[in-house]
């Protein structure tokens, strides 16, 4: 058996983080930070190994591991990555480094617990993306709520209890339906494959199960609620702004960069391949919800007075592009029979997920930088920040422009691919999605103008000190990632290509 790289990626941060929890309170904070950073960097290094060793020509699961876990129920510890999950795993490891680095300034008490929670969460998130067994997936999916719950509840703002309860109940409600769907699929698998088969909870085996239309519809809806809440799609999005506002900067970063992507990943791994016919049936509905998300939420974002809320709404709006790109595929195929365009549409969605991971992380960290200094998230408490923090303003400008989707930044790539392919489905889809061009620019740059530009009107702003050291380092890493992805997305698209084509074939292959 090959080297269990994925297991390392999952368990090293979890055990490392757990070890931190047992440290005595008086342990030197610097050591704790250094140790966590090393751990995060090591994990990132491992994910890079994964990336380098990845074969882009195949859609097969790579670095696969299979160990019996609960043999009596045919539940396996089954891991593997393909082109859909690999970029998300790398993104997860990258984001954790940023969060740990960013905590150098913003978190001063309970440092060990803070780092430990994030490391454990990193391992669990990698587990979600790497699991190929439904029970394992579900375990990681649920386990991940706990650290997030703690992060918001413990290091959060004033209204954190409401936010954290809302977050937990909202997502837990979805999870229950996810579990029901998984159990039903297992029953179907048992009747078709036989009780002794080793694939009763195998996600890949689920994808090949024959299901009737009525079964598919129910399974689709159960999965949809679970994943739509995570994405989040309109109208089940209202937990996100509250959670973001109350979460500490690091929590917001992980929430926006990774957690939301788990919803999108669920669509790719479960909904589309397992219930292709139901997906086709409901596609126009989902497209409608996506377009509402894009336009309605962007309008809501314009009138926000709280920076974090604004960025949270902007996240929802941008995630609308992701779901749009995934579900326009059916009408693209119907309309043009051109598989290339359909593949491009899905790749656009995936790139948008990755890119949004970078951009929302960057924007939340920028707000974090300001919050650390003035302890306010309200736009009106700022103004003229560029006068005292020019380097910060330059970075913030880049990230704002990336959020606007300026070509040359990663924000452009996904939107461009999705809008171009949506046009081939129906012109009005593209027109609806392209309003993001105008509305996105309006809310992002209007906020930028009020926060950064202008002369100093608040005395507190005059005392601000520019970013330095670790803060520059964090933002620089993100800037490089955003520009690189924007100027040359080819390598990422290459990684996605084979798996996306495979997924497309699964989606177009009717199970009826």
């Amino acid at each position: 058996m090959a080297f269990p790289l994925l297991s390392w990626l999952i368990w090293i941060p979890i055990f490392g983080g757990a070890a931190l929890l047992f440290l005595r309170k008086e342990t030197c904070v610097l050591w704790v930070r250094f140790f966590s950073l090393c751990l995060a960097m090591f994990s990132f290094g491992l994910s890079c190994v994964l990336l380098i060793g990845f074969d882009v020509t195949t859609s097969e699961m790579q670095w696969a591991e299979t160990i019996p876990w609960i043999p009596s129920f045919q539940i396996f510890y089954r891991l593997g990555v393909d082109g859909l999950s690999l970029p998300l795993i790398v993104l997860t490891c990258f984001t954790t480094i940023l969060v740990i680095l960013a905590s150098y300034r913003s978190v001063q008490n309970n440092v060990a617990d803070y780092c430990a929670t994030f490391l454990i969460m990193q391992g669990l998130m990698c587990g979600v993306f790497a699991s190929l067994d439904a029970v394992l997936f579900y375990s990681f999916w649920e386990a991940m709520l706990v650290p997030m719950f703690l992060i918001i509840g413990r290091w959060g703002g004033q209204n954190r209890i409401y936010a954290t309860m809302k977050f937990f109940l909202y997502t837990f409600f979805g999870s229950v339906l996810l579990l029901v769907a998984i159990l039903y699929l297992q029953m179907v698998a048992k009747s078709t494959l036989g009780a002794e088969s080793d694939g009763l909870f195998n996600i890949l085996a689920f994808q090949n199960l024959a299901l009737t239309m009525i079964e598919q519809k129910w399974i689709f809806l159960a999965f949809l609620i679970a994943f739509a809440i995570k994405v989040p799609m309109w109208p089940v999005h209202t937990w996100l702004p509250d959670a973001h506002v109350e979460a500490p900067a690091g929590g917001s970063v992980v929430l926006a960069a990774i957690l939301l992507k788990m919803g999108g990943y669920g669509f790719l791994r479960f909904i589309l391949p397992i219930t292709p016919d139901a997906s086709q049936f409901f596609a126009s509905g989902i497209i409608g919800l996506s377009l509402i998300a894009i336009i309605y939420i962007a309008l809501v974002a314009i009138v926000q007075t709280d920076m974090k809320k604004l960025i949270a709404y902007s996240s929802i709006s941008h995630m609308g592009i992701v779901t749009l790109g995934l579900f326009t595929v059916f009408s693209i195929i119907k309309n043009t029979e051109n598989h290339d365009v359909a593949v491009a549409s899905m790749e656009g969605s995936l790139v948008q997920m990755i890119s949004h991971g970078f951009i929302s992380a960057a924007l939340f960290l920028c707000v974090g930088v300001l919050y650390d200094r003035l302890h306010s998230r309200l736009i009106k408490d700022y103004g003229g920040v560029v006068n005292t923090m020019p380097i910060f303003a330059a970075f913030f400008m880049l990230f704002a422009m990336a959020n606007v989707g300026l070509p040359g930044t990663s924000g452009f790539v996904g939107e461009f691919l999705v809008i171009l392919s949506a046009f081939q489905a129906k012109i009005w889809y593209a027109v609806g999605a392209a309003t993001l061009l105008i509305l996105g620019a309006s809310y992002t740059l209007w906020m930028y103008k009020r926060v950064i530009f202008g002369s100093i009107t608040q005395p507190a702003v005059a005392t601000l000190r520019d970013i330095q050291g670790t803060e520059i380092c964090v933002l620089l890493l993100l800037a490089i990632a955003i520009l690189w992805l924007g100027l040359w997305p080819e390598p990422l698209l290459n990684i996605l290509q084979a798996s996306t084509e495979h997924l497309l074939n699964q989606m177009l292959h009717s199970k009826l």
Partner: protein
Amino acid sequence: MFELKSSCLAIVGLPLAAAMLAGFCGKVIGQRASHLATTFAVGLSFFLSLIVIKQFYTHEISPLNFTLYTWGQFGHTPFTIGFLIDQLTAVMMLIVTFVSWMVHIYSIGYMRDDPGYQRFFCYISLFTFGMLMLISANNFLQLFFGWEMVGLMSYLLIGFWFKKESAIVANLKAFIVNRVGDFGFLIGIAAVLYCFGTLDYRLVFEEVQNISKVELFQLPTGYTVSAITFICLCLFVGAMGKSAQVPLHVWLPDSMEGPTPISALIHAATMVTAGVFMIARLSPLFEYSELALNVILTIGTVTCFLMGLVGIVQNDIKRIIAYSTLSQLGYMMIAMGVSAYPIGIFHLVTHAFFKALLFLGAGSIIFALHHEQDIWKMGNLRKSLPITYYTMLVGSLALIGFPFFSGFYSKDLIIEAVKLSQLPCAKAAYYFVVGGVYITALYTFRLFFVVFHLKTDRDDIHVEPNSWVVEGPLVLLAIPSLVLGALFLRPLSENYFAHSLVIHPEHSGFQELMAASESPFFMALHGFTSLPFVLGLLGIITAWIGYVVRPKSAAWVQRRLGVIYYILKNQLGFDAFYRLVVVMATRTLGLFCWRWGDQWLIDGVGVNGTANTVKRLSQSLRKMQTGYLYHYAFVMIVGFLVLIAWLLLSVIV
């Protein structure tokens, strides 16, 4: 051996490299090194473009189309970053690098005391890079790259003085209005990909004939929209944003809040002409859509005429020139509309020089008067700023199309082309275009006379002498404004652009015009007898009488035409409309969605409503758990009795 490929990369790359140097190391290397590096790089680009254009003219090289790298894959269609260097690109490169170079030199003096000195040079070099990327693109993707890059630099430069509230309002407005244009542009690109399956110019142009009859969709009214018309109209919306055509023009006058060198470079000579350039570059597409050409002609005419009118009543020196730019962009669009692409590009070139000259001249006045921009506070500056006076005279005469000056040749040809055009809108457009000449002369010389000739009894105007870096570029720009028209005419009649600009044989106006063309000298002589000349002269005389001989008469006219004056003064109400209707509606809608949709309906009724219902239910259930034994006993007895009663009843029945 002259290498076109590497020199093209050098032309485009040098400003980028210099901008990076000034941007990242500006504080380390200091002001002097920053401006030297950027100015030198852009100057070098200019000389290289000069060689390129000379070689094209002497037919030593042929157009080059190459790919630099593959940006990404659309399925299996590669999206690339690549360059197309042909005659059109060469001309554009020449003016972009030359004007940019002049502005670099000028800024050394103009911006010398500014705290953001290095940042400024970084921005303008980066802008030059973006503009060069735009004009040398060989596909729609890179065109859009350059398009947005210059938009970004324009945004940053309008807001260069970020402490000024008016500047940061203006740059936000500029960006968002441009985004409205980009919205159309992006849909247009999507339509191109849909119809042609590629974004590469060459492949698209080869296919265009097969597509020209394809119908894209049917409107509910039964009217079918052909693919090519849809594409062209969408792309034109992009051009309307960038080239500030009515009704997306509102950002350009406000953009004057930026430093004056920027107004000369971006908002007069180069970026705002990007829309015109784009249409010329895509002439093989536009030629197949009669409807799109009519729309372009109409919008161009409206812009040309109305914006000239608004220009007459402005008092801010830069705003007057800005409205003049709008009007001249209208002229260029008109040329595009009547399929006289080479003439439109010709006007673009001459306009770039004389308008940059006028802006830099205005900058020199503003600088000398310590940032005073109101023309009524200037007056009688002829003696104190002689070089500015004479160079601006050249610029003004070129602008109104006075015979022998560069603007004459290009504008006269546009008017002739409109006359020859067969388009349904051309007849009406012709009258407006000719009438526009009078208006142009009036606002141009109103500004000129008020600033330089109007007698003032105040002596408090303290004029600071300008340094050579400010006045040198004025002279260097005045020379092409004077002679370029005559020089350019010959290559134009020899069909220099035949390779780049495609004109459908049915649109024969340009060919007829070129067949009938004379030598520049005789053309100018004939110009003295033409109607436009008479109108232009009339405009100058009106301005002379109204503002110099009898200064009170202008005020009298203003009183008599109060309503018209009020409307023009308020820019025909476009700003008010956008502010009161569009912006307010968007914000109200946003507030509505947020307060009623999110907070009331989803959160209030849905989420918290569910939670509260559960809470209320459990609270009423909780009341039963009183903890008193006799309550429980009572309930038990009641239950027992009910059970017995039920049993008995069932037995009886």
